């Protein structure tokens, strides 16, 4: 189909509408996304001449992809709810405090390492909602607790929650070289990761804070950022989870090191409260709500046990070849015929669309870990009898808005793709933007998607096909552009209104959302420039082989 200004604007309309509703009118994703879906539908039928059968089957593909992803989100939430109910997060806090009095290390441990660990096991805003109150419990002022929590974990978005955002990107694009894209993404996120650690140290104590934190930042970054970089091309599901778990353990070793065995040298920190915690009762109740409370004191090992089980399951099922082959042989997939619009745009048929292997799916591991957690904590008296119903209902209840948003967003992306709208958007951009300029700006598109939807996953779903098509149209590196998309989508969560609201609401500073977003913009803008430069280098030198 020929690209004209009219059909380009029509193709843009669903995305622009979602952006306007989310940011301009403050609608939630579960309400804004269906509007975008219906607009995409209307555009597909009226302008791009897509027949009903194409609409139906592309929508079905989108729903199937959404289920795939929900099967990670819901069990991850369940594990979080069970751990919260048992007070496991409080036990982790106590565990860290008992190792060192160094407040700078506390802030890095919770705001950067632990928040990244939470992102590794469950995204969904939990890193912000849990980490911010924990930081306040350590003496950080609520406003800065939110800023630090948001800055500290977003680098872990793409491969966190067992790589669900990465899986979303692979679901909506045809990656020529997935390993190269994963590797390039790992490089970009390593840079964002190091920058996050240094920035948090700077917030704590400016230059002195950075000097004192430097050994910890370099060691921890090497482990979790470097570990993610190494694992991403070969095992995306484990790429974040394993390294952040190791990094969390490393904190305890660092706490006993000569660098951090004693108090911090920073005498006056803007982020720390000078004396008592805030005495706002509402805020305290909300903070307690996010991290839960313990029925009786729990050991650190008990608190971490479910996550150790999760690691064990993943390692056995995914890393041991024969086991992986056996478990992966149980698969379910649906065939789809070739589809064509009346303008001649063709979507090829497929024998088994995105086949589902339940025994090697991350959702199954999370579900089993949640079950283990429940049995363990109930056995130890950490969960009161009869609470499981509330936990299950709470989990489902929290998942529903995400389910609705996904059931609209992914079908929207598939309908736009199948009717040729995404290609028209890409060709229009390619017609006006020189190749390398687009490559440099590609992460901005990722940030935009993340800002709109508060989700790296949704950003990848919305803009992954567009980025891919534009790269093809401009004859530039798909590796560079898709890596930039997901890296931008990851860091964009630091300013995403939904995530900011979660974190700020948990510590009673939601009226300062605008300030928080403005402060975090500096992290996002600097990271964008760095990622953009890396993307251009990747495109110029075909970094990663793509």
């Amino acid at each position, binding site marked *: 189909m020929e690209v004209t200004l009219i059909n380009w604007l029509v193709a843009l309309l669903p995305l622009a509408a979602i952006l306007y509703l989310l940011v301009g009118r403050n*609608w939630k994703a579960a309400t804004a996304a*269906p509007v975008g879906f219906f607009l995409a539908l209307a555009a597909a039928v009226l302008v791009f001449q897509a027949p009903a059968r194409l609409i*139906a*089957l592309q929508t*079905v593909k989108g729903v199937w992809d959404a289920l795939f992803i929900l099967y990670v989100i819901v069990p991850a939430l369940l594990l979080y709810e069970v751990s919260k109910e048992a007070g496991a997060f409080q036990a982790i806090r106590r565990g860290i405090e008992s190792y060192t009095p160094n407040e700078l290390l506390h802030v890095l441990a919770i705001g950067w390492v632990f928040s990244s660990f939470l992102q590794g096991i469950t995204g969904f805003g939990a890193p912000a909602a849990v980490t911010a109150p924990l930081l306040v419990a350590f003496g950080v002022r609520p406003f800065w607790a939110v800023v630090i929590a948001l800055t500290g974990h977003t680098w872990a978005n793409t491969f966190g929650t067992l790589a669900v955002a990465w899986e979303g990107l692979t679901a909506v694009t045809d990656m020529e070289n997935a390993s190269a894209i994963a590797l390039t993404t790992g490089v970009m996120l390593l840079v964002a990761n190091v920058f996050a650690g240094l920035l948090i140290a700077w917030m704590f104590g400016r230059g002195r804070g950075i000097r004192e934190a430097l050994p910890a930042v370099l060691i921890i970054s090497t482990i979790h950022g470097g570990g993610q970089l190494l694992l991403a091309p070969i095992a995306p599901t484990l790429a974040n989870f394993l390294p952040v778990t190791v990094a969390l353990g490393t904190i305890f070793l660092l706490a006993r090191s000569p660098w951090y065995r004693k108090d911090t040298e920073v005498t006056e920190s803007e982020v720390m409260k000078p004396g008592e915690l805030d005495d706002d009762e509402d805020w305290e109740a909300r903070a307690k709500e996010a991290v839960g409370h313990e029925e009786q004191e729990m050991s650190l090992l008990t608190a971490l046990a479910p996550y150790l089980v999760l690691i064990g399951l993943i390692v056995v099922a995914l890393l041991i070849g024969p086991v992986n082959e056996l478990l992966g042989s149980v698969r379910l997939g649906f065939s*789809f015929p070739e589809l064509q619009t009346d303008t001649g745009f063709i979507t090829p048929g497929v024998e088994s669309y995105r086949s589902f292997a339940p025994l090697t799916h991350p959702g199954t591991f999370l579900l089993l870990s949640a079950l283990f957690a429940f049995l363990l904590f109930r056995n130890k008296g950490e969960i009161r009898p009869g609470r499981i119903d509330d936990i299950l209902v709470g989990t489902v209840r929290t998942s*529903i808005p995400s389910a*609705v948003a996904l*059931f609209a967003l992914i079908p929207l992306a598939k309908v736009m793709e199948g009717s040729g709208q995404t290609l028209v958007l890409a060709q229009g951009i390619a017609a006006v933007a020189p190749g390398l300029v687009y490559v440099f700006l590609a992460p901005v598109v990722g940030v935009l998607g993340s800002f709109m939807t508060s989700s790296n996953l949704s950003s990848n779903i919305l803009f992954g096909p567009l980025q891919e098509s534009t790269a093809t149209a401009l004859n530039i590196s798909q590796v560079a552009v898709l890596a930039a998309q997901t890296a931008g989508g990851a860091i964009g969560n630091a300013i995403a209104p939904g995530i900011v609201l979660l974190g700020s609401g948990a510590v009673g500073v939601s009226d300062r959302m605008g300030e928080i977003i403005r402060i975090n913009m500096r992290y996002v803008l600097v990271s964008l420039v760095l990622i953009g430069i890396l993307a251009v280098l990747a495109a110029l030198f075909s970094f990663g082989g793509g």
Partner: protein
Amino acid sequence: MSWIHERVWQMGLGALLVLIGALLAYQAAARESVNSALMWVGLGLIFFGLLIPLITRFIESEQEKKGERGEN
């Protein structure tokens, strides 16, 4: 059944309708000879399921406006 009056559970119902609609639409449209009637039933369920969040939002905002008018 008081839970059904809560917006989140209404959206949950919408999600369920989307799932059922997708199943019907696939059964109808993926085969060589398309069952148009069944396909449209499936699409209808999907569309209605995704309309529910919009409908409930509209109803909620109308109720808020009525409440404000009542106070004034």
